[in-house]
């Protein structure tokens, strides 16, 4: 699991690659919450290369969304692979934050 981020004007595009499962989600949580705590409050999560997510991974997104709400921030997820999109849908995440098709769309929404 690898997380990289890139600042594009007001928005931080965060790419998550690999798997968010019981073994990798703790590291993901630490990195993402640190990013938010460092002042990045408009986050576009590019999940094009996220191959798998389980409930521990979903928890990370929920924590991020809650923490961002507390600082008037926002998150948008984009480019979900179909198997990941299915999981987000079952979990009802589409009512928690916007899930869009492309990184460009996500950045536009947040900008």
């Amino acid at each position, binding site marked *: 699991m690898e997380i990289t981020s890139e600042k594009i004007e007001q928005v931080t595009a965060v790419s998550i690659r690999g798997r968010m*499962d*019981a073994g990798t989600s703790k590291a993901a949580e630490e990195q993402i919450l640190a990013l938010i705590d460092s002042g990045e409050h408009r986050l576009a999560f590019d999940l094009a290369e996220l191959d*798998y997510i389980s409930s521990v991974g979903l928890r990370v997104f929920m924590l991020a969304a809650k923490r961002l*709400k507390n600082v008037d921030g926002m998150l948008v997820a984009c480019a979900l692979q179909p198997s990941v999109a299915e*999981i987000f849908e079952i979990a009802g995440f589409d009512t928690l934050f916007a899930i869009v098709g492309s990184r460009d769309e996500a950045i536009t929404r947040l900008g």
Partner: protein
Amino acid sequence: MRESHVIALRANLADIGRLAEDLETLGDRWHLTARLVSQLNLTLEEVVTNILSYGYDDDAEHVIRIDFELDDDLLTARVEDDGRAYDPLQVEVPDTTAALDDRRIGGLGIHLVRTLMDDVRYARVGDKNVLTLTKRTGA
């Protein structure tokens, strides 16, 4: 056409990682779709993680046994552990439409399992917990 396969995992986080690889191999052998393998991986990860969280109060090594069977297009995974009696299906269903402030993570794993699998049953058999999961492969 009937196939069967057994995976024995030690009850620890490292073996959960191994599970993903074992399922990829099984998926190849039984010609399961990548999507089904992913759903199976998620399901079993949730089940095994729950067993680890609730099943044991000692430091002894425990084994979780998963018996797989493919009978034409019916896939069955039977997960057996020797932890204390625990029915993961008794967990409250989460509200997946709640607003962010009211959203809880508890119960989400089992909700995913129930939604992804066609059937899930729990039984206490002697000193074992047995969770039986079935799904049609659509083959």
